[in-house]
């Protein structure tokens, strides 16, 4: 559609310019194989450097990792092969041997070798890869990288403080072309890294500073011309689009159907929806749309939704340092008053599902971790139960309005930000529902997300939106509720310390522990911290305990689980992954590498 639109307006000009040049260019773009995708950020000024947040190195297209995570709810260590064709992890989990794809070549024809991986690791130290910290004794840190041969590399973890997340963190290392990057990296970089990790305190400090300075220099750098080991190379980029061309040297080039990919910038929701309405998008990332937009989009020929669970949940979190929200009965009472299905319908009708239980987990996570739902309270709307809870908290009802014990009105300001429409709409619906139930609720909005976060951090809120259940790892999930935002910070010895509300970044202000019938006294922060250290079967028990605790104490009322909703169009390509496929949580470039997305027979 869009191509014709351009051609239509171009017609007049073409007539006066050169008719031939017009037709030739449109045929070149036809080719049959342009796949149009959407990514969150494109920036024409950005370097081709995957570590820069504004980058022209797009994961799965022209940026490659060792492997692609399956992002499974319970096991973060499941990976699809990428640059690493296969790997072995030692039983204690501290030694990883990676075998590079034998056919892997850079787009300029040079093979991908162990040296590339070694240099990539060095850059990761400088730029902040998760498993690569140039600080001695870092738990879950890589201490050495050894090139065994051209196609084999060994990674070693700090054996004294191993973490179960290390493997995943190494596998998600970006692989960079050594022959392009080595000019930017000092040849003695590995000596510096070793000094930083094992040298004397003073030497280590100097070495760390050198590495930090290198990182600062490298972050803004990128090669002028893209050299990629992925299925595509970057051809050019404008401020709102990027054009990638198929890399003939890619090791699995046969699997890649499109001859080129256009990536659109997800600058603005309405633009994306417009493109979807024109059927121009072959594959999108998650796009938030209203129900009416969804209906319209799906009415367009070829448009389909492929969706899967997403480890993200929108919750209303309480500032428990404010009265009466420190009282669990007030929180429960409010939970009983809000019809979450209705809020979801208003706020996130198409790509959200009302959360079944406020437990800090999405429905999929509850299932994945095998949490028994029989013990969980669904907090279905029940004004009688709400009244009981409120009365237990000492609230009074007068003339249909709830008041505080001292007779002052019970007000519930709900903080949202103008940046996110689903939150704003949802918040006004919650407010409307609470008002109808005699609770004086109102919506207040921070002007933008940065201000919102600052307001939260400064405790300038009462009830606010917060993303919870951010997985996939269990630690990550509960760290959102029982982490730094709630006062639990990692101590030096691997344990956690709790600081009081309003201090050290504690803005939720929950008590350090609470008694829960059937569980006893629970310190959720400590339990959460254990999640990063124990093996999977123990994690399950902890998750169950934390779910029960959260469901009982209601530090947050989960409103909806986001649905990872990818729009695809089958007019030009077919063979998209099925619903709930784990690959949906990776970009479409990865789908192609794994054999999905085929050109449609003409």
């Amino acid at each position, binding site marked *: 559609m869009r191509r014709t639109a351009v051609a239509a307006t171009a017609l007049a000009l073409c007539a006066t310019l050169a008719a031939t040049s017009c037709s030739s260019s449109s045929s070149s773009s036809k080719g049959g194989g342009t796949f149009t995708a959407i990514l969150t950020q494109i920036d024409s000024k950005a370097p081709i450097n995957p570590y820069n947040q504004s980058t022209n190195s797009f994961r799965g297209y022209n940026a490659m990792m060792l492997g692609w995570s399956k992002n499974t709810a319970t096991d973060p260590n499941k990976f699809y092969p990428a640059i690493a064709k296969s790997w072995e992890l030692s039983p204690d989990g501290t030694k990883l041997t990676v075998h590079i794809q034998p056919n892997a070549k850079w787009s300029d024809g040079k093979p991908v070798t162990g040296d590339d991986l070694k240099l990539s690791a060095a850059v990761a130290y400088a730029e902040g890869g998760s498993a690569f910290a140039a600080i001695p004794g870092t738990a879950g840190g890589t201490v050495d990288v050894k090139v065994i041969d051209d196609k084999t590399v060994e990674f070693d973890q700090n054996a004294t403080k191993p973490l179960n997340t290390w493997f995943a963190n190494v596998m998600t290392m970006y692989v960079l072309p050594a022959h392009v990057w080595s000019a930017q990296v000092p040849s003695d970089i590995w000596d510096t890294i070793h000094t930083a990790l094992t040298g004397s305190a003073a030497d280590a400090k100097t070495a760390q500073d050198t590495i930090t300075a290198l990182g600062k220099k490298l972050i803004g750098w990128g090669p002028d011309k893209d050299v990629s080991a992925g299925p595509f190379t970057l051809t050019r980029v404008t401020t709102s689009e990027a054009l990638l061309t198929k890399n003939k040297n890619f090791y699995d080039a046969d699997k890649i159907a499109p001859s080129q990919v256009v990536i659109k910038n997800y600058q603005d929701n309405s633009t994306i*929806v417009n493109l979807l309405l024109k059927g121009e998008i072959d594959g999108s990332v998650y796009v938030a749309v209203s129900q009416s937009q969804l209906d*319209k989009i799906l009415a367009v020929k070829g448009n389909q939704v492929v969706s899967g669970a997403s480890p993200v949940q929108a919750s209303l979190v309480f500032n428990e340092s404010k009265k009466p929200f420190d009282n669990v009965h007030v929180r429960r009472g409010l939970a009983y008053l809000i019809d979450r299905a209705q809020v979801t319908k208003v706020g996130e009708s198409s790509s959200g599902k009302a959360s079944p239980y406020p437990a800090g987990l999405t429905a999929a996570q509850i299932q994945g971790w095998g949490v028994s739902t029989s013990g969980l309270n669904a907090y279905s709307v029940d004004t009688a139960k709400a009244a009981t809870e409120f009365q237990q908290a000492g609230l009074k009802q007068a003339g249909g309005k709830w008041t505080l014990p001292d007779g002052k009105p019970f007000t519930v300001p709900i903080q949202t930000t103008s940046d996110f429409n689903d939150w704003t*709409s949802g918040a006004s619906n919650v407010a409307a529902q609470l008002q109808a139930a005699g609770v004086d609720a109102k919506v207040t*909005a921070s002007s933008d997300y940065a201000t919102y976060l600052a307001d939260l951090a400064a405790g300038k809120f009462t009830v606010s939106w917060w993303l919870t259940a951010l997985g996939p790892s269990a630690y990550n999930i509960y760290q959102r509720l029982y982490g730094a935002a709630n006062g639990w910070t990692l101590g030096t010895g691997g344990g956690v310390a709790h600081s009081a509300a309003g201090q050290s970044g504690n803005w939720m202000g929950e008590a350090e522990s609470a008694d829960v019938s059937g569980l006893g006294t629970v310190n959720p922060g400590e339990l959460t911290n254990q999640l990063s250290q124990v093996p999977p079967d123990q994690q399950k028990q902890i998750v169950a305990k934390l779910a029960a605790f959260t469901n009982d104490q209601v530090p947050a009322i989960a409103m909806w689980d986001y649905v990872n909703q990818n729009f695809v169009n089958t007019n030009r390509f077919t063979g998209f992954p099925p619903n709930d496929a784990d690959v949906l949580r990776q970009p479409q470039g990865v789908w192609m590498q794994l054999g999905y997305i085929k050109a449609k027979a003409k």
Partner: protein
Amino acid sequence: MVTAVEIPTGNTPALTPARRGFWRNLWRVLRRKPTRVAGAVIVALFVVMGVVGPFLYPANLPTDPGNAYAGPSGSHLLGTDFQGTDVLALLVTGSRYVLVAAVIAAACTVVVGTGIGLYAGYRRGGPDSVLMRITDFIITIPGLPLLLVLSTLWKYSNPLTMGLVLGVTGWGSVARAVRSQTLSLRERGFIEAARGLGLSTAHVVRKELLPNVAPYVAMNLLISVTVYIYLEVGLFFLGVLPFNENNWGVMISQAVQNGVTQTGQGLAYLLSPLVAILLLTLGIVLLVDAMDEVFNPRLRED
């Protein structure tokens, strides 16, 4: 030698017609064209809406959650919004914030602008150049970007603060125009003459200067109202303003964000505030047209 003798002439400068019988004049000019009467009526209606409107819906707005994005119907004259709230109710209750903020901003602009312009033009010399440098600064600094930054700093919790912030950023051109008008009145000897008669500064400013800049100021007040409504609503449209109460800007912003422009569903929801704004503008434009004729007889039709 020729003795120049002036026959006493009745040649008065066309400067002062506004001073007497402004209202009578306005009414006469209004009556000349039905469109102008319509303009006055529209403006009056909106004023009534802003004053009385919110009292019509003291409790919760009528909402019909099962019937979102509805078109106009008997039960919802202007349809419903994304959560089924009655658009007419939103429109009426949302008028006050927008109108009050715009009027405050316009008043602020006019008062500050006129004050500074008069003072600078009257005093000349040092105070003048200091004030004019400040004015230049206000004019030069890009207003909208400034508001964007200010919107993160301020809590526009009520129309008063909103209006003040808008007004504070917008008085520059009024000040400059009033100053140059004052200077030209000076040149025509108004001030010297008045002072020669031993009149006090306050008197000169109040009786001689103010009435002469009043027409310009009055029209600017009206026009500023429309400008500020747009600015305000525009900021909401950009989604950079936090909102605490329902208003037209929030309606537009929500309608656009919920995809009304793309799906056409709930068009009444998007169009109602837009049309309300355009209608109010039209009213003000027509009224200004009439005032223009009262104040500038030169523009008067033959």
